[in-house]
């Protein structure tokens, strides 16, 4: 996976907070493609900064113009922009949490299900699944809260497609959970449940970055 263009731009513009900035920095250090992207954006930013300044009205007019523009139009846009940025950053942090825990969990599940079949392996699997469920529920709750904040901004068609997808995933998760209750050691059901959790979080994460149009 790579860092998307908007986030790389935010990294170059130093608009990422500490945790996310460090995550992106570490990724760039080992990813040739994203590293090249950063170099390109930095070079472009340098050039844009050195471009000739636009012709502005006389100095005596500027403060008044800026004040009135800000008051009339800019503030609303900046507020919306700040809110969206906060949403994006929080979504990224939640995603990082679940991606790391899911990846580890999947490895544990795989190794335990291919192990020697001892009781401890089965217990470890159950405990791991439980932890996955807790991690998932926490991450899903946070992403759902972010989405509720943005729901009114989204077009009705987007909301409809999103809700339809989440409903399909929820139904699948319920079926997998119910089956797992009656057949707790079944590795296929564990895989289905994990896949459902990851899918739901992925859809929620993507939804938090949708534009309002």
């Amino acid at each position, binding site marked *: *996976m*790579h860092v*998307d*263009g*908007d986030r790389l*731009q935010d990294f170059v513009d130093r608009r990422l907070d500490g945790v996310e900035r460090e995550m992106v920095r570490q990724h760039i250090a080992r990813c040739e*493609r994203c590293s*090249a*992207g950063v170099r*390109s*954006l930095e*070079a*472009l930013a*340098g*050039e*844009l900064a050195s471009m000739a300044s636009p012709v502005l*009205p006389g100095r005596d*007019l500027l403060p*008044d*113009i800026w004040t*009135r*523009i800000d008051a*009339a*139009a800019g503030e609303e*846009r900046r507020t*919306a922009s700040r809110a969206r940025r906060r949403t994006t950053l929080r979504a990224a942090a939640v995603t990082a949490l679940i991606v790391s825990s899911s990846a580890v969990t999947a490895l544990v599940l795989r190794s335990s299900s291919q192990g020697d079949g001892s009781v401890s392996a089965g217990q470890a699997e159950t405990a791991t699944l439980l932890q996955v469920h807790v991690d998932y529920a926490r991450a899903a709750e946070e992403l759902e809260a972010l989405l509720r904040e943005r729901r009114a*901004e989204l*077009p009705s*068609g*987007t909301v409809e*497609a*999103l809700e*339809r*997808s989440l409903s*399909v*995933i929820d139904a*699948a998760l319920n*079926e*997998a959970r119910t*089956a797992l209750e009656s*057949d707790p050691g*079944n*590795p*296929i*059901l564990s*895989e*289905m449940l994990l*896949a*459902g959790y990851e*899918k739901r979080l*992925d*859809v929620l994460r*993507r*939804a938090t970055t*949708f*534009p*309002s*149009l």
Partner: protein
Amino acid sequence: MRATILGILIAFTVAGPASGQRTIEHRAAFGHGVAVRIHNMVGSVRVTGWARDSIVVTGTVQESKGEPFVFHASRNGAKLGIWDANTPGLGPSHLDVRVPQSSIVWIKTASADVIVSDVSGSVDVYAVSGRIDVSGTPREVSAESLSGEVRIAADARSVRAKTATGPLTLRGNITDALASTVSGDIAIEGAVLERGRFETVDGAIRYAGAIGAKSSLDFITHAGPVEFLVPRDAAAEFVVGTYEGGFEDRFGVNARRTGSSLKGQEIRFTVGSATAAGQVTVRSFKGRVILGAK
């Protein structure tokens, strides 16, 4: 007089939403292997790679007052498009962009359709309801749309394609492929894949074509049917695990267990020669798994 000028300036800057459509044409010298970042929420974006050291954008744009069309380009990179992602009723802009073939292309849209062709650098496209079509020989492709259709017909090192309800089609020679949907159908048609993972919740998955000797392919679905149509001379080892979906053999592999419910039991069988065989793993809760001959 000063008040009049001020009034005109403010009116020009902050008043009302949409303005009219205008035609654009921009061109600039451009380096190889550098990034092009394109935003256009509504309308269409077409990006074509060409064997020149320049970038050209033509088309028609509709701008809101606060967010005019942007074009900044140099030998180190470019950003262009309509950055406005929030003005209700924003009209469609149609952008036709030509870039050096090795460019790194990022495109973000909402409902705008996107077509990218002949770019050999990496391609990232993000849409909400817009369709995405990528062809040629991009090094890497990442394409996401919530409800739009995604079609990739490319020879690429890596392809990541995701939708929720939109259908998804993959073709071409791909080293590492991931295709994921919720309800959208996934079709893999005549592709040559080294590694692949294909996921749906209730969308159908259809794989039609050969399975390479070095291929390792994973399919996972909750309720969608998974259908394989492979040539008679195919060579592959299958591991099929389904809870309630059952396995249907139309190929004639004589797998020992078939039927409507396997309750999590796996079926393992080999098609063709086991010594030069690709690996195929299928996981399904209640999606039916079907193997047929092409």
